[in-house]
């Protein structure tokens, strides 16, 4: 074998190997990791949602890696700082995600195919204050209301209430009967009293978006009657809560209701799939009662969850492909039915199969929707308004603070850092 032929052979071999290598790299599937706080939904992502995507994208493998909800924000921030966070980031609504975007952790997604499926209102929670840049693909909103034990209502001959006086008459009847705890709510964690309590019944009093925007623009104060009244109503809930409600946690309340020991659960629609699995009785739902018959009803219809792209992701093209799929009607249908109670934010209506979820969704037609009052802009400073609502909501129900005192504390806290743009 002459030397030139030998060299040629080696070169040919290298060429072949290089091509094969390139081919192998091209064919190797890319793995995308999703950061999320929805550890309750792990099975649904693994069994229903991800396989549906992988079927059409054989070159991409998706892994869903959730953290506990209360630890998510802290864990995510640390991971992003260290550069070890996943490719796709589940976005909390409003300021937490906005801060991530401003720090350059999330990529702007304005040009993403399918973004047109969302109205600007649906995108508000993940859009900059000037309304120009959207940085997460909206996935779902949740609606507040009350879930009740239908069997218990039938046994006691009760009907869901429409007005606040009816609501209290109903609670009184359940209490007089004594079989059931009227309301499954604990004040221990604060989160329940703020979300399931104040932000559930509040919009009826402060007139939803009108009241919320008035607060942001400095035209209303938390000490105004329409903001104090919900606290006064919450204080009246106290006699109808279970024994030792001061030490009752969120999980305790859920169990109290699903074990059939409580009649009414002040809820959010995200509970539906969990309750379907746990409860052995028929479930019903009613919207927050209005003050007097004929009043417009208001519901908290809160954009809660979205998906964004980590700026440091090594596979932005594949991650965008996933996000485009998330923005598609196909995903909306799959997600809303796999997780009843998480309602799609897309323009096109999604057919729902769960009757309870349908009932929650039906209020969108009859009531006016608003988002939780503390989430946009008003929780950017210290002291944090949302956290103060947790503490003061519990204080009011525990009787530690009178409604007016609680409201004064909230307004004082807000005034200390928030100057509404005039």
């Amino acid at each position, binding site marked *: 074998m002459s030397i030139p032929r030998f060299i040629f052979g080696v070169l040919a071999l290298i060429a072949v190997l290089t091509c094969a290598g390139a081919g192998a790299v091209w064919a190797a599937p890319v793995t995308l990791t999703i950061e999320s706080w929805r550890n309750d939904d792990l099975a649904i992502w693994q069994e229903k949602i991800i396989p549906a995507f992988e079927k059409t994208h054989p070159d991409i493998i998706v892994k869903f890696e959730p953290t506990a909800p*209360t630890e998510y*924000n*802290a864990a995510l*921030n*640390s991971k992003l700082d260290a550069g070890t966070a996943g490719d796709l980031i589940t976005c909390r609504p*409003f*300021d*937490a995600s906005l*801060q991530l975007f401003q*720090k*350059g952790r999330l990529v702007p997604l304005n040009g993403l195919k399918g973004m047109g499926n969302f109205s600007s209102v649906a995108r508000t929670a993940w859009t900059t204050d000037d309304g120009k840049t959207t940085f997460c693909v909206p996935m779902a909103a949740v609606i507040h209301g009350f879930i009740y034990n239908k069997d218990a209502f039938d046994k006691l001959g009760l009907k869901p209430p429409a007005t606040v006086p009816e609501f209290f008459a109903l609670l009184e009847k359940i209490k007089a009967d004594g079989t059931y705890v009227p309301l499954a709510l*604990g*004040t*221990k*964690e*604060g*989160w329940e009293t703020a979300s399931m309590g104040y932000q559930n019944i509040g919009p009826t009093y402060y007139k939803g978006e009108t009241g919320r925007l008035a607060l942001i623009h400095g035209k209303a104060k938390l000490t105004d009657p329409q903001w104090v009244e919900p606290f006064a109503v919450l204080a009246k809930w106290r006699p109808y809560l*279970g*024994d*030792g*409600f*001061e*030490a*009752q*946690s969120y999980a*305790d309340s859920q*169990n*109290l209701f699903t074990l059939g020991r409580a009649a009414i659960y002040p809820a959010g629609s995200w509970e539906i799939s969990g309750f379907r699995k746990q409860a052995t009785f028929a479930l019903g739902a009613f919207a927050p009662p209005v003050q007097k018959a004929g009043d417009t009803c208001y519901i908290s219809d809160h954009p809660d969850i979205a998906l964004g792209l980590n700026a440091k992701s090594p596979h932005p093209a594949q991650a965008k492909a996933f996000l485009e799929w998330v923005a598609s009607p196909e995903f909306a249908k799959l997600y809303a039915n796999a997780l009843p109670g998480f309602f799609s934010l897309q323009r096109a209506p999604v057919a729902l199969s769960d009757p309870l979820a349908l009932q929650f969704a039906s209020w969108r037609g009859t009531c006016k929707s608003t988002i939780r009052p*503390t*989430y946009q802009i008003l*929780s*950017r400073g*210290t*002291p*944090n*308004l*949302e*956290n103060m609502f*947790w*503490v003061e909501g*519990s*204080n009011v129900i*525990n009787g*530690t603070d009178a409604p007016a005192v609680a409201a004064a504390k909230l307004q004082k*806290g807000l005034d*200390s*850092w928030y100057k509404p743009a005039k």
Partner: protein
Amino acid sequence: MTRVPPRTRRNRTHIVVFLAPAVLIYTAVMIVPLFETLRLSLFTTSGNHFVWNGVANFGVLFFDERQSLGFWNALRNNVYFFVIQMLQNPIGIGLAALLALPRLRAGAFYRTAIFLPTLLSFVIVGFGWKLILSPLWGVAPSLLGAVGLKGLFAPYLGRESSALTTLGFISVWQYVGVPMMLAYAALISIPDEIIDAAEVDGVVGIAQFFRVKLPLIWPTIGMISILTFVGNFNAFDLVYVTQGALGAPNYSTDILGTLLYRTFFGYQLQLGDPNMGATVATMMFLIILAGVCVYLFAVQRKISRYQF
């Protein structure tokens, strides 16, 4: 005649080699982060940059009502928690004195049983006690009911007036084994001759414990106390597990550890502030440092030690 051999310059590299692992690891995981924290507390964040801020963060922490209310409240709670926690020392020493009695039966069993909770994870302890004390599913209401004391039960962890005290007792229950074991070890190492001499002099029973044994174990007690102090001002886990990071109800169980967690990492809608968080951490460090110094320079020197 003995001749002292001339001092030779021996190879001392082994000293460096043996010290290196500990020094390097300790520096990397303790000393550098500590100084980094101190440094961080002197800066503030502006956009994506840290800007020199002097001691302004401390001013905010002490005097600006937005931060200071939480800080002083947490500090007060921490001191109260420490006072409750110190109960574990007399109880532990008392238990050790009982265990050290020569005629005690099943001493090994008691020793193990009392020490066991110390080995449990605080998560198990926290959740366990939360369940025991739960007004819904707990055994505490029914147990109290069985002896006719149901009226004494209240949702202890849910009331502002009792939550922190309850946590203090849970912590005492968990850690009482540590002072007990240390005091027990000190007690059984007292030579029999001293005890015999005391008995010959007519010092027996309770008087013997207070006048002979207790003075001999003072150094151990001092050490236990300072360990309790350090552990206490670093505490976070038990409160976080049982009451959440907000120190529910109404911040009544909020201690410096939970305040630091909320400030540094953020909580729910509250965004994290690394500089303010580092300021809280620095204060915790300084408080512990001051406590340890007081102990080292004021207390420890007054304790007389006896060599047997």
